């Protein structure tokens, strides 16, 4: 079997804007999310959470709760073992506090009862004897030698002696001679920055329905990765993976925050103890207090530049906190900080410290938005100092093919220069600005990766195709996967249906994260289609009595490869499917791979803002995103990722923050007080897709889901500095902060 050789593929399905398969179900309410599943005899689970930021748990007396009519089970940390693996132990301890409550909202006990009212009443009857301990929520304070100790002995071997007791890791990247680089500069700027933690802000709450009886479990939940949920829950509950089946519901947003477990092991433990199915749905307040926000940071950046705009050296020190458990996100931030630049001398240093905050969970491009915010802010300020065009300076110093990246490797095929050129040529860059308005620019970067993936493609008897894959669809992947299968098979898109399966139906699939699904599942789908085509060509070769090599597949048909192969009428996929039983049985293709070669992604954002001089409020008046997407399989979805990430970054820049009181209690655990941008706050965000093919994918696809959250932080800060004539060095740039800065300036 041969594939027609094409140096440049002419796509028929890929690149079109077909209807999304889940759209009608979602807008009509038919789609089943985590909280939508119920079974007879189901109990309601509720979780008791610590009112203290840091407290030793001296005793938990649940006897009165257990005695309450309608209460079927109460669990605490005593109902779980202690995993040997440190990472798993941390995840379990985050689900249910053991010995100490480490942050406000940390789970300390859980109840399963016949209804919500009974469960709520039972929680009030659980008596927890706390010894309140000193706490710390600020990263700089947490790194101090005399800081309250969140957890003892969590530093790894990279932490230098003499570091504060909460420091858990140190990292460092870069190359070249910094001293010599700074000596060449006409101006060296050093600035310090702080950013607050933000939440992923998914609209759908965490929810699950668990049954665990007789050692066998069923779990329905909202997640970005049912296989990871199975692995973690089986580990925590001491089960074999084969005895726990996890089914992912439709998902109402994740953005990285649903790449771990919070309530699932608790619901399983309650079910195991009560012998009944248990459903837990988190409240929004619980989600803010006890699920993973991103890191908060404190950073120092130093950059040197010549008068004509050549950056001679860059240095950044990043201090991140990821809550009460060790967190390595700073290593991603430290690698990404200067990735957009071609520098002879660059160095980044990263530290992580424990605080009395919830355990960090991944959030789109984890670690990169804040470090790049700091670097891009200083680059912009340098441009302002010398009156240089910020876009020209990015172009002059841009990483390109052959650049030694600031984190080590040499870039292969990257699209940063192309995105900068596109921004330069776009009418937005030279459009006039109004009063109190300013324009900001920032580059962004993310690594992307592939990972473990299984796909099964089945040919139905009528010639239509069913695809089974194992990654929850958080960004339109079902459509994209169907499109790639249709493209490869040469059949219409509507002849293919893709479903997300449970953990028992395919081999392991990594989580839907890292912008990996369209890349990796797409790659596996294409290979599965090719495997099915190979079978179909072999069957037709037998029918025709010729060699398999003499049959080619084109446009949904098996055809003789040429005149010498024989004179046969092409056989369509429908014809081949109809006689599959007679020619050897069902026809399918499958592919299993640990996909590599995802290819990095760059983006450039242009933001126009207007700052109200009376209130300090910032309004985004125009916003354009330029991003290298590789081949855009479904441009609507690619644009949606570019717009969605931008909106989240805009919220991070302007309003979103975790606010703790002096007792370490979260003060804004709800969407009324934690202000995310809504449609009425924003202009239409214009996406400009650049298609620089990724050589690591058969169709040139790159991941697109994360890069777009990176540039908005600096783009908006740079825009505000030009609109209001002030430069803030902390996020969010909420109205009071801007107003205060404007008033200080006079």
């Amino acid at each position, binding site marked *: 079997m041969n594939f027609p050789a094409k140096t440049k593929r002419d796509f028929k399905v890929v690149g079109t804007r077909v209807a999304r398969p889940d759209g009608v179900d979602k807008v009509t309410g038919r789609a089943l999310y985590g909280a939508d599943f119920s079974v007879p005899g189901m109990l309601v689970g509720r979780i008791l959470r610590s009112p203290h930021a840091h407290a030793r748990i001296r005793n938990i007396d649940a006897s009165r709760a257990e005695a309450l009519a309608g209460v079927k089970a109460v669990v605490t940390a005593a109902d779980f073992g202690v995993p040997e693996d440190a990472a798993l132990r941390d995840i379990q301890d985050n689900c249910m506090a053991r010995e100490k409550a480490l942050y406000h909202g940390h789970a300390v006990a859980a109840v399963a009862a016949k209804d919500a009212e009974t469960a709520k009443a039972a929680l009030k009857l659980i008596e927890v004897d706390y010894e309140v301990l000193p706490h710390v929520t600020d990263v700089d304070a947490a790194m101090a030698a005399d800081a309250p100790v969140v957890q003892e002995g969590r530093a*790894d*071997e*990279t932490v230098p002696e003499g570091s504060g007791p909460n420091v858990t*890791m*140190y*990292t*460092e*990247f*870069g190359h070249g001679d910094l001293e010599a680089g700074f000596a060449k500069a006409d101006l060296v700027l050093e600035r310090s920055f702080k950013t607050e933690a933000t939440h*992923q802000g998914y609209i759908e709450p965490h929810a699950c329905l668990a049954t665990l009886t007789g050692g066998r479990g069923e779990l329905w939940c909202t997640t970005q990765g049912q296989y990871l949920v199975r692995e973690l829950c089986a580990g925590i509950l001491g089960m074999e993976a084969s005895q726990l089946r996890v089914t992912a519901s439709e998902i109402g947003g994740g*953005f*990285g*925050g649903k*790449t771990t477990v919070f309530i699932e092991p608790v619901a399983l433990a309650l079910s195991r103890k009560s012998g009944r199915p248990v459903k837990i749905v988190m409240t929004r307040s619980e989600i803010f207090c006890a699920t993973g926000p991103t890191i908060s940071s404190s950073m120092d950046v130093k950059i040197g530049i010549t008068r004509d705009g050549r950056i001679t050296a860059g240095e950044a020190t990043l201090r991140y906190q990821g809550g009460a458990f060790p967190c*390595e*996100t700073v*290593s*991603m931030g430290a*690698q990404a900080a200067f990735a957009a630049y071609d520098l002879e001398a660059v*160095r980044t*240093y990263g530290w992580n410290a424990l605080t009395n905050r919830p355990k960090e969970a*991944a*959030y*789109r*491009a*984890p670690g990169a938005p804040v470090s790049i915010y700091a670097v891009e802010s200083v680059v912009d300020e340098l441009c302002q100092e010398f009156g240089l065009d910020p876009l020209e300076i990015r172009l002059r110093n841009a990483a390109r093919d052959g650049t030694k990246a600031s*984190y*080590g*490797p*040499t*870039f*292969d095929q990257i699209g940063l220069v192309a995105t900068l050129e596109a921004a330069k040529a776009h009418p937005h860059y030279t459009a006039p600005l109004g009063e109190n308005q300013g324009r900001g620019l920032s580059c962004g970067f*993310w*690594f*992307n*990766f*592939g*990972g473990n993936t299984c796909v099964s493609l089945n040919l139905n008897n009528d010639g239509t195709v069913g695809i089974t894959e194992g990654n929850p669809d958080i960004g339109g992947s079902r459509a994209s996967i169907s499109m790639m299968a249709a493209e490869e098979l040469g059949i219409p898109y509507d002849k293919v249906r893709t479903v997300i399966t449970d953990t028992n139906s395919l081999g392991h699939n990594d989580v839907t*994260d*890292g*912008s*990996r699904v369209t890349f990796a599942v797409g790659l596996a789908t294409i290979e599965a289609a090719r495997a099915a085509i190979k079978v179909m060509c072999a069957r037709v070769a037998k029918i025709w009595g010729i060699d398999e090599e003499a049959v080619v597949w084109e446009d949904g048909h098996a055809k003789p490869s040429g005149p010498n192969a024989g004179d046969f009428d092409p056989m369509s996929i429908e014809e081949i499917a109809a006689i599959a039983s007679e020619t050897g049985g069902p026809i399918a293709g499958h592919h299993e791979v*640990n996909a*590599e*070669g*995802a290819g990095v992604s760059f983006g450039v954002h242009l933001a126009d803002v207007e700052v109200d001089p009376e209130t300090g409020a910032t309004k985004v008046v125009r916003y354009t995103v330029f991003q290298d997407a590789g081949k855009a399989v479904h441009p609507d979805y690619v644009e949606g990722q570019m717009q969605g990430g931008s909106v989240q970054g805009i919220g991070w820049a302007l309003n979103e923050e975790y606010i703790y009181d002096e007792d370490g209690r979260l003060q804004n655990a709800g969407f009324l007080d934690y202000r995310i941008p809504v449609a009425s706050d924003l202009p239409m965000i214009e996406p400009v897709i650049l298609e620089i093919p990724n050589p*690591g994918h058969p169709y040139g696809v790159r991941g697109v889901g*994360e890069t777009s959250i990176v540039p908005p932080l600096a783009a908006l800060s740079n825009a505000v500095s030009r609109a209001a004539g002030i430069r803030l060095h902390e996020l969010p740039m909420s109205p009071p902060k801007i107003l205060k800065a404007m008033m200080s300036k006079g």
Partner: protein
Amino acid sequence: MVAVTLWGALRDQADGQEVVEVEASNFKELLDALEASHPGLKPQIERGVSVAIDGRVYRNSWFTEIRPDSEVVLMPYMKGG
């Protein structure tokens, strides 16, 4: 021999060297050789690393070929959202 560039924080675990040379023809051999020649790197390798080979980042592909003239850079294990 393959020249492997370590990230800064690992240099203390490798006698201060930025680049170490090991005998390896694929990803797995590389990690085994690094652990054997520089035991201080073992904790990080066990926690997880990625390896950039000629500019392309691999997370855990044991049999990915490494040529003697390949550019090899050890990196932290990638994670995403």
